């Protein structure tokens, strides 16, 4: 069974194809009835790169990842997955295409142990469904260690882990079970500085292992620490698209905060408190 799961470090492609584009969006748009949530989105998700998607509340970030994760279909443009025009009918189909999504609510059962959660739905078992407990614990342990997460007792319930560790278990699981692209929906939003660091390190490790990472965030500082390319959404459209070399943290922060709008606000506030 374990042969079916691809490990990131011994994948067949090695380092040669790290810049391969896995997902390409061309003028993609999405309307909910007469609400146009997304319009004219162009985006490349490549292996070995972290693509950061930033934007204010309601900008369309979640809608964008739901399209790639197979929860919603798009209504304009086209989405290419491995070069093929693709419409996902379900999250299952996206998973089968190697696109795994880790939502903020994580898809972990809090009272179950770490190793049971790691293998949930993909248990290693012998005849009559007998679980291979020792083997699963060993794999979970080595996969987590490989990515820098050390959990001394894998029988501990997932709910007892820190928020950062929980995120990492969910991501490690997606990677172990063959994801080529992982989409992370605001993984650092609910975390403190230290725990965010754990997750950000993990994102870098996943990238270096050759995965494509789509990192959704509010936080330009977090994005700038790990991102290779940045897409800022505003009211459902791309307001800025840049590679890391072509942008500074100040520009990114300014774009996020809505540059001009912030200056206007500053003036307004100054008028209120002379």
């Amino acid at each position, binding site marked *: 069974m374990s042969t079916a799961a691809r490990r990131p470090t011994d994948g067949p492609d090695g380092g040669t194809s790290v810049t391969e584009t896995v997902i390409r969006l061309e003028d993609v748009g999405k309307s909910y009835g007469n609400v146009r949530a997304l319009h004219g989105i162009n985006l490349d998700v490549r292996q070995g790169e972290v693509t950061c998607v930033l934007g204010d509340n309601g900008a369309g970030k979640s809608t964008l990842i739901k399209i790639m994760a197979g929860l919603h279909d798009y209504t304009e443009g086209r989405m290419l997955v491995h070069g093929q025009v693709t419409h996902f009918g379900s*999250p*299952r189909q996206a998973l089968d295409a190697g696109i795994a999504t880790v939502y903020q*609510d*994580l*898809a*972990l*059962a*809090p*009272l*179950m142990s770490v190793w*049971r959660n790691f*293998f*949930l*739905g*993909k*248990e290693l*078992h012998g005849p*009559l*469904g*007998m*679980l291979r*407990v020792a083997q699963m614990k060993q794999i979970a342990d080595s996969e987590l*260690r490989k990515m*820098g*997460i*050390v*959990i*001394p*007792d894998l*029988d*501990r*319930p997932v*709910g*007892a882990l*820190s928020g*950062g*560790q929980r995120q*990492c278990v969910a991501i490690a699981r997606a990677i172990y079970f063959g994801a080529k692209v992982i989409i992370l929906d605001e993984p650092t939003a609910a975390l403190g500085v230290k725990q965010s660091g*754990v997750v950000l*390190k*993990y994102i*870098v490790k996943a990238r270096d292992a050759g995965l494509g990472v789509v990192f959704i965030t509010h936080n330009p500082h977090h994005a700038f620490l790990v991102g290779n390319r940045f897409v800022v959404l505003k009211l459902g459209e791309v307001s800025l698209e840049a590679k890391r070399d072509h942008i500074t943290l100040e520009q990114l922060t300014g774009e996020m905060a809505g540059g001009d709008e912030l200056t206007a606000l500053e003036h307004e506030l100054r008028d209120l408190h002379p």
Partner: protein
Amino acid sequence: MTTATADEGDGRVAARPAYARLLSFPAIGALIGAIAVFVLFMAVAPPFRAIDNSGTILYQASTIGMMAVPVALLMIGGEFDLSAGVAVTTAALAASMIAWQWSLNVWVGVLLSLVLALGIGWFNGWLLQRTKLPSFLVTLGTFFILQGCNLAVTKLVAGGVTSPRITDIDGYDSAAAVFASDISIGGLHLEITLLFWLVLTVVAAVALTRLRIGNWILASGGDEASARAVGVPAARTKTGLFMFVGFCAWLLGMHTLFNFDAVQTNMGIGNEFIYIIAAVVGGCLLTGGYGSVAGASLGALIYGMTNLGITYAGWNPDWLKTFLGVMLVGATLINTFVRRQAAKR
């Protein structure tokens, strides 16, 4: 950035103390409770120490335990079954009246009753999925439906509130040997339900902790949406659990039928709560996703010891239900406390 220690270094997650590991067994509270109840009645109730009374206590415990086991699994899977008590009576009535009405071999009635009991379980699961209502409500409906059927159909067929006697029907002897035999070992009188109970406990405990289906049960009860998202067939798992309750209700129903040869239509009402109490005392969370089969069986043993211990001690048995209620609340508090300790970092 390159050091491999992400969280290890802060020293708070290192080793869990031994007592925390011990407390992380869900059944630990029930084990302590069973020992306490045992010691109590050994001290205050002389008849409790008599060997022939042990058989009676174990019989009581086994008839509760046979149902507490599947009810506990179902609760760990996140659902309730309030029809579990009357379903036992339905199974027994169905077997006897099918065989009696059409003058069939009693085994035909026994097998059709099995189909019926599994069907009731399946219906509960199906109704739950279709209506998306809480199982508490869905099975409350089934509880009343079955209770009405038990009375009405029996009156129609047998003309009273007791099922017809089946001792003269073909196949009675072999069926009685299977479902209601007993043995005596040196003054200790043991009914076959003890064997049923032990086998069910072992099978269910192994399934929960060592089989893939156990993982699915824990996940379906713990976080159904998440379980579905990673490909766990939560709906089928739950329907299977309801059908397991149905199977055990049938087994206990057959024992009841062949042990007493006739069944009262109002039997079993209220027992569903005793099964749930045994499961909760055994460490099952009402919210699902956590619990123990062995714990539920210990809960049944506590019930058996208490039920008879109160009588043996010469106390007024009218207080039994009060005692059970106190025990339920107490056990829930202890289990909640224990779980917090176990989860502590």
